[in-house]
């Protein structure tokens, strides 16, 4: 039988205490460091006030966490399933691929809809970013980025520009021009600068500001015109993989999910981490707000999707099944919030009933992982991009 894999990959002298121990390999500001677990704890407690020891801090944070759990439980008087019993059962969902957009030469990593409900921008591993009119399946613009793995792309609300970024650690904005001979790459404007890959980007309510999330563990708000950093958000202890802007009335918050299994809600004005949810068992790949803005869903490598309520401050539902063994890469809600579409690494798309927690349908069609999924702005269809180089529109 093969050996079990250990959490510590190496065994040897620790960089700080020089004793021979199982080492944990970490990266601090992209520098690899090999510390034993004891030294790691010490380092994590930088900023110890006098009188506090390692043990006391650990104990304190544990008790606080338990208290938090209790507080949350107190107000939890009913489960979503019980409340949802009154809801009408959903009939059979009959969705098929209506359009297939072929043209990328490599894995499609990200896509976004335009507000006109029919245009899409998509980015792929080979650095190509293409703007399509999904209805006619024509390509309208194509840009080649000087980097591979373009993991984030977004359409501006006005429809006049697109933003994208990836392994180049920055987010660039391209104004979309209609002159066929114009070289789009020439007009590129570099907006964001991070110290690691860009994992997600979105325009806030106008073309003038962009919110980005990065593998360096931070998210940031930038001014497009000047490229200036307006606000940065620190708090994740690992790569931030996804973010979504709240549709609420005040429009002042956003949620981000990361490799540290946490989903954090932030205030755009102050940069503060307002709420935090850490019930996932693995990296969170995608977060999306419920249409009313009172909750959000997350998709994770632990093969579950979960719904978190912001006012009750807890997880209210888990969408999972034994036969789903692969991580979920992307989620989105239908317009009414009743259906949750989730794309998985086993090439399928599962459709969940948000209220009842059951699976409504499973959609086959892609030949490789589904990497991104978005519902169109008017809810008539949704688009899924996959590592099989195509995008499909389902309705």
């Amino acid at each position, binding site marked *: 039988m093969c050996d079990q894999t250990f959490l510590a990959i190496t065994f040897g002298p620790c960089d700080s205490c020089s004793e021979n121990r199982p080492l944990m390999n970490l990266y601090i500001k992209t520098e690899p460091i090999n510390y034993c677990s004891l030294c790691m704890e010490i380092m994590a407690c930088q900023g110890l006030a006098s009188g506090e020891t390692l043990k006391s801090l650990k104990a304190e944070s544990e008790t606080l966490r338990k208290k938090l759990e209790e507080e949350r439980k107190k107000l939890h008087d009913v489960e979503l399933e019980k409340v*949802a019993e009154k809801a009408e059962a959903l009939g059979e969902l009959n969705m098929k691929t209506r359009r297939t957009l072929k043209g990328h030469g490599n894995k499609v990593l990200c896509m976004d809809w335009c507000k006109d409900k029919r245009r899409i921008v998509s980015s792929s591993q080979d650095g190509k970013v293409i703007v399509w009119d999904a209805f006619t399946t024509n390509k309208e613009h194509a840009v080649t980025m000087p980097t591979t793995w373009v993991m984030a792309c977004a359409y501006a609300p006005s429809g006049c520009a697109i933003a994208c970024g990836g392994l180049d650690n920055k987010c660039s904005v391209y104004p979309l021009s209609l002159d066929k001979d114009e070289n789009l790459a020439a007009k590129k404007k570099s907006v964001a600068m991070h110290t690691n890959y860009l994992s997600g980007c979105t325009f806030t309510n106008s073309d003038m500001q962009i919110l980005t999330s990065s593998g360096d563990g931070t998210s940031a708000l930038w001014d497009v015109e000047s490229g*200036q950093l307006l606000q940065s958000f620190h708090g994740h202890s690992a790569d931030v993989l996804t973010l979504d802007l709240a549709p609420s*009335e005040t429009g002042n918050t956003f949620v981000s999910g990361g490799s540290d299994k946490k989903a954090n809600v932030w205030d755009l004005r102050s940069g503060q981490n307002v709420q935090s949810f850490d019930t996932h068992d693995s990296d969170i790949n995608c977060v999306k707000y419920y249409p009313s803005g009172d909750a959000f869903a997350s998709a994770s490598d632990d093969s579950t999707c979960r719904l978190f309520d912001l006012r009750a401050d807890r997880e209210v539902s888990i969408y999972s099944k034994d036969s789903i*063994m692969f991580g979920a890469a992307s989620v989105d809600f239908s317009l009414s*919030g009743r259906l949750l579409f989730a794309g998985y690494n086993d090439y399928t798309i599962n459709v969940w009933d948000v209220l009842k927690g059951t699976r409504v349908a499973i959609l086959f069609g892609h030949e490789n992982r589904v990497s991104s999924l978005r519902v169109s702005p008017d*809810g008539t269809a949704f688009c899924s991009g996959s590592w099989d180089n195509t995008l499909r529109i389902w309705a």
Partner: protein
Amino acid sequence: MERVIVAMQDPDMGVKMRNQRLLITVIPHAMTGNDVIEWLIQKYNITEEEARHLGGLLVQYGYIYPLRDPRSLLLRSDDSPYRFQTPYFWTSSRWPASELDYAIYLAKKNIRKQGELVDYEKENYSILHKRINHTWDFVVMQAREQLRASKQRRKADRIVLECQEQAYWLINKPCPGAFDVLDLGPERCNVLSSRVALIEHSRRALGRNRVKSSICLESFMKYSEQYLHHDPIMSGCLPSNPWISDDTAHWTINTDMVGTPTRLRVERWSFSFMELLNDSMGRREFMIYLEKEFSAENLCFWVACEDLRHGESSKIILKVEEVYKNFLAPGAARWVNIDSKTMERTLEGIKRPHRFIMDDAQMHIYFLMKKDSYPRYLKSELYKNMLAKAIVPQETKKSVFPFMRRQRHSSPSPAMVTQATEDDGKAKGAGPTGTSSTTNSQI
């Protein structure tokens, strides 16, 4: 995935394994593709399509390998025999497939049957030959030894071992162009966080106001119910979903500045104040109503503040001054009625203007409109007339000839629309000719 495999191998509850026949030899502990699918259907209560898909994945990731056609990693739902891969070869153990092993494997293949190596394998072979030339003798010797040893085994064992190894290498060194199961994307690493910060955060979190679950969950139910008929995926859309019928009528009747809006759209304005403001036609109607009530300055103020918040950084100071001049200065043309405390705070803040300086005042006016003007608007004649005038489009009947595909026209790009309004003086004809062309595209 390994959980599934272990469950499958369970002697009592697992997949039935028998001695399978492969041409003339009998292979022990094998199962048919059909068995695998049946078992999956039963255990997880899923449909056959899903079970086939799942089984296929198990084969592609190397947990089960085929005996009959070892080159293609597919799960066939008939009686082709399959076996479980030994855990040594599991992809999750992530032994990096060493070059030496691969070289030995290719050498064995080469020796056994000249010319059995496929193109990409031949390439890899020559590359390896160049790279580890110094140990080549060792490689060839090992290959010969292993071949000799295998000749002494029973045929059944030999076949099994060969297939096993082949499947393993097919996965680890795939044919270029075929997809690589081990491709995972950029590395994700961990950054340390401070425990002190964590404690701070927990303390703050304890102080939050929370709402009872029952209230929150009820609100989800209500929301879903309210929007049920507006959700095209759940209740279809009139006249027809453009993606299904290729008919863009649904979009044309819902454009921003259409003459008569649809009933659903007007109904939606009554769901929440934000819905009304987000729809440009709704906003326009509301403005007309407010003008009648002589309180239009509220909405103008709100719009100006939104513009300030989301506009360009360079124009902030200018915009703040404008807003002050028009709405806040004593005796201003469109003076808004804010309570004195907020007014004081705002006026103080204007001395050092920034993007969010008007937030308090904006919030005040927003809630004023929401609590007062908005409900009155919904009860007003203006709104009721709008509702009565609104059209309910006919559902288009399915065309008699289902194979007749409509021409799909492209729409003017939003980028072009704004460009056209910018170059107001230029001839309008110059713009549209660039992009609108009728195309009859294939799915």
